[in-house]
């Protein structure tokens, strides 16, 4: 018998598998397909103060071994999440959920967190300071250590639950940003958000995506994610939630060896809606194959 349990910022998870925000809605679409209580947890759709429609379409473009999205944080707003999504979620998901929060100002981040902090279903906050698809917010907080630290400070002031900061790879030095977040009391780091990318349609000779640029994700970015998690693991002592192009249980183990305590699976959900269940199911056999008894033992094992 192998042990897949991990401890993430003070909360024990049955396994480290977390569907990533923006690929799993508020869980409903997947709960119709399988019992999502098999997951470690999931990170729900990035939530802002007000409802947002997001960017114009097309929002999606295919790439070699991946895709680009520019959804632009479409979400129903925090009040609807509290009044509708969380009560619905309670019917099919019985574990602490990860609340992904985004904002366009320090006040917005704090407001959304404050509203959600009293919701008992929420286990962790994942603060998105790395969305590449919105102007004047999102990623602009995640591209400098000072701005990132300000978000952590503002959010920590109003929350009692663990705060995980989701970082952008679109920076010159991700380590300094992770360290700045840890110094202000972040309880964890999740990384990486999507990489800024583009595709151009040869027939129209214009970008495929209406927003021109978007976030590049999928297995093509896995080596970049592994490298960054590896670097940040050496510089911080808080747990890391690793993500970027993970497709199967082997990828989960590889990411944990780089330094992740838990992992998020994002884009894979969009091409195989059952992928997270498959990963959870195959994880024990893959652990046995590589002689791993306790998953916790391999965190950062590549260092």
């Amino acid at each position, binding site marked *: 018998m192998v042990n897949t349990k991990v401890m993430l910022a003070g909360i024990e998870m049955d396994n480290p598998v977390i569907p990533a925000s*923006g*690929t*799993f*809605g508020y869980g409903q*679409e*997947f709960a*119709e*397909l399988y019992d999502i209580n098999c997951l470690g947890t999931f990170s729900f*759709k990035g939530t802002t103060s007000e409802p947002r*429609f*997001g960017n114009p*379409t*097309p*929002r*999606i*473009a*295919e*790439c*070699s*071994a*991946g*895709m680009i*999205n520019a*959804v632009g944080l*479409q979400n129903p707003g925090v009040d609807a999440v509290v009044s509708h999504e969380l009560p619905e979620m309670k019917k099919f998901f019985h574990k602490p959920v990860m609340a992904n929060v985004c904002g366009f100002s320090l006040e917005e981040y704090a407001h959304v967190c404050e509203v959600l902090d009293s919701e008992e279903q929420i286990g962790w906050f994942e603060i998105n300071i790395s969305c590449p698809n919105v102007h004047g917010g999102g990623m602009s907080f995640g591209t400098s250590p000072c701005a990132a630290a300000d978000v952590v400070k503002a959010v920590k002031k109003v929350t009692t639950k663990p705060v995980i900061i989701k970082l952008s790879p679109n920076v010159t030095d991700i380590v300094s940003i992770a360290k700045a977040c840890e110094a202000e009391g972040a309880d964890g780091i999740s990384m990486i958000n999507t990489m800024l990318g583009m595709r151009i349609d040869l027939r129209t000779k214009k970008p*495929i995506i209406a927003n021109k640029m978007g976030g590049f994700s*999928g297995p093509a970015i896995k080596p970049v994610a592994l490298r960054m998690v590896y670097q940040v693991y050496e510089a911080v002592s808080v747990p890391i939630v690793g993500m970027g192009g993970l497709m199967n249980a082997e990828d989960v183990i590889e990411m944990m060896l780089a330094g992740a305590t838990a992992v998020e699976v994002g884009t894979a*959900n*969009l*091409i*195989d*809606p*059952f992928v997270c269940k498959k990963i959870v199911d195959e994880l024990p056999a893959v652990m046995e194959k590589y002689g791993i008894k306790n998953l916790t033992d391999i965190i950062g094992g590549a260092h």
Partner: protein
Amino acid sequence: MQQQILQVKENVKLTDSIYRMVLVGDMSAIKNSGEFVNLEIPGYFLRRPISVCDFNANELTLIYKVVGKGTEVMSGAVAGDSYDVLLGLGNGYDTTVSGSHALLLGGGVGVPPLYNLCRRLISEGKKVTVVLGFNTANEIFYENEFNALGADVRVTTVDGSYGIKGFVTDAIADIDYTYFYTCGPEPMLKAVYRATKTSGQFSFESRMGCGFGACMGCSCKTNFGNKRICKDGPVFVKEEILW
């Protein structure tokens, strides 16, 4: 929704760029005309959403146009090949509201989803008039197949090389329909929206990420709030549409 591995039974060319693929396997997840399926294409990352042309318990007919590399790969499929397919996607057409005489308006590659719908409406004892619009004579497909179902079929071509010259909306003035169903390119749908005198249902296409409502890649605004073309559509009623 179900994930199934389906076998290709046949894959034939209907016109220069239109192909018909018949797949066999468990089709129990498909419930309604106007649904779509999402095919994994070897060598490509995202699935390709294709509307259901016809189906029964163990056979699925898809008619698709080669527009890019993914559909080009599909066009090379031969009997015995298999595809990983997500089945039972989208809402499909509602026939309960059609009244006694349904008008079906299809343009180009928007024609296929109307085929099973036509079959169903006729089996429900309704009169069906079908108007199929194409650019030119050599792009026409499925005129005979709709005729064989027992529908009254009219064909329009933009260049007048076959049937009525013009667009589908040029061929409906004398038809005493009680409701309409349409699928085609967006300029055609807009023209249908303006030219029709009853309520009706429109099937839309979109670039999709997942095809089952998770990624918000194909959202649109409607009179009843934001909707996802893949999950809340692809069929929308006239009153929902913001035109």
